[in-house]
Structure formats: C-alpha cells, structure tokens
C-alpha cells in the first residue's frame, strides 16, 4: 500500500467521522428547534433518492455489459477512479434534483451555513485537483488515476453550488 492510497483511506475515514459528528449535532439541534423537512420536501427527496439510485443501477448495468462483451476497448480509467466517478454522479444528481425542488435544506435552514460548507469543500478539493493536473499525476500512461478524485469531488461540489446559486436567484425573482 503506497502513501497516496493510505492517505486516500484516511481521508475517507476522516470525512465519515466528520459526517457522523455533524449528523449527531444536527440531530440534537432538530430536537431543540424542530428543524426539518416538510411533507412536500420529503416527497421530493424521495424522488431525488429514486433518481440517484436509478442512475447508479444504470451505470452498473452498463459496466456489466461492458465487462461481458468483448469490445476490444479498454476504459482509460483506473478501477478505483471509475468507482469514485460511479459514486459521485448519482450523489450529484440527488443533490441537484433536491436543490431544484427546494428539498435540499430544511424549511428552517437559512442556507448560509450550507454555502460556506460547500465552498470550503470545493476549495479544499479543487486545489489538490489542480496540483495533480500540474504535476501530471492525474493521467499516467493515458489512464485516469485515483489522483483525479479531488477534481471529481470539486466538480461535484461546484455543480451543487451552481445549482444552489441559480435556485436562490430564481427564488428571489419569484418573491
């Protein structure tokens, strides 16, 4: 196991730990101030989950077909990077759908904390992403490597931020 893989695993574990801590804090807050989603938002979130899950299934169905068939073409992506892409596409679809249908944040949430959290996540990922483009580690021997993960995550957060910005603008015009 090389240093990068070890760092990657540590990064995933750190993100999971932070997510659990944030979840626990939110759960406590929820009890205190009744913050949550209303019935329409829960319905739309259900649709968003359905869409994300369907996308995930389609991706894997395509991959199974690809591995079964002999197309004489190698996907120029490392398996771990391919799995990352397959994971982040449905997540992005879920988030963008939820944002578009006003179901991303609870009805009491102001949205400012979300913005800053997502901007921070975008910046923290775009910097190593650009660095890996500059040092050429993102593509080795014509194959997209695991080093592309930061860039993929940055694109995901960028997409969500853009959706939040557009939705916010539309809402202001509507009011």
């Amino acid at each position, binding site marked *: 196991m090389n240093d990068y893989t070890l760092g990657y695993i540590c990064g995933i574990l750190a993100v999971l730990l932070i997510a659990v801590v944030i979840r626990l804090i939110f759960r406590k807050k929820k009890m205190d101030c009744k913050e949550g989603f*209303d019935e329409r938002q829960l319905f739309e979130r259900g649709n968003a989950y359905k869409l994300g899950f369907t996308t995930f299934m389609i991706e894997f169905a395509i991959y199974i077909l690809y591995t079964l068939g002999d197309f004489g073409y190698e996907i120029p992506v490392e398996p771990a990077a391919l799995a990352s892409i397959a994971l982040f596409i449905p997540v992005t679809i879920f988030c963008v759908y939820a944002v578009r249908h*006003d179901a991303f944040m609870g009805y009491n949430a102001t949205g400012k904390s979300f913005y800053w959290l997502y901007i921070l996540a975008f910046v923290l990922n775009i910097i190593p992403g650009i660095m890996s483009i500059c040092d050429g580690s993102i593509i080795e021997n014509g194959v997209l490597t695991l080093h592309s993960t930061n860039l993929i995550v940055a694109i995901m957060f960028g997409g969500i931020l853009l959706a939040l910005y557009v939705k916010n603008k539309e809402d202001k015009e509507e009011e």
Partner: protein
Amino acid sequence: MKNLRIKSARAAKDMSQEALAQAVGVSRQTINAIEKGDYNPTIKLCLAICRALDKTLDDLFWEE
C-alpha cells in the same frame, strides 16, 4: 389546477406566503406549489392551512 382561494384568503388576512408557511410549519415554496396546483397537500397540512386562514376545508379545498 391553481388554488386561487388560498391565495385570496391569504391576501384577505394580509399574509405573505412566507408568513403562512411559518404559521403552518412548511417552506414558502410548499405554499407556492399548493397555490400553483403543483402539489396536493395531505389532509393534515390542509387543516393547518385552514386554521391559519380561519377558513373551512370546503372554503379552500372543495371543488364543485
């Protein structure tokens, strides 16, 4: 189908969508979706809206 009766009842009470949303515990967009006819609320939410606007279910939701 648009629900103009909620809109007019809300206007009669001089309430904004935001104020009604806060009164019944939903998002402003949910009230907007109900008024536009994009979302059918549950009976629980219908009753909450009726109470907030001092109207009956028939007044706001019954279609002839």
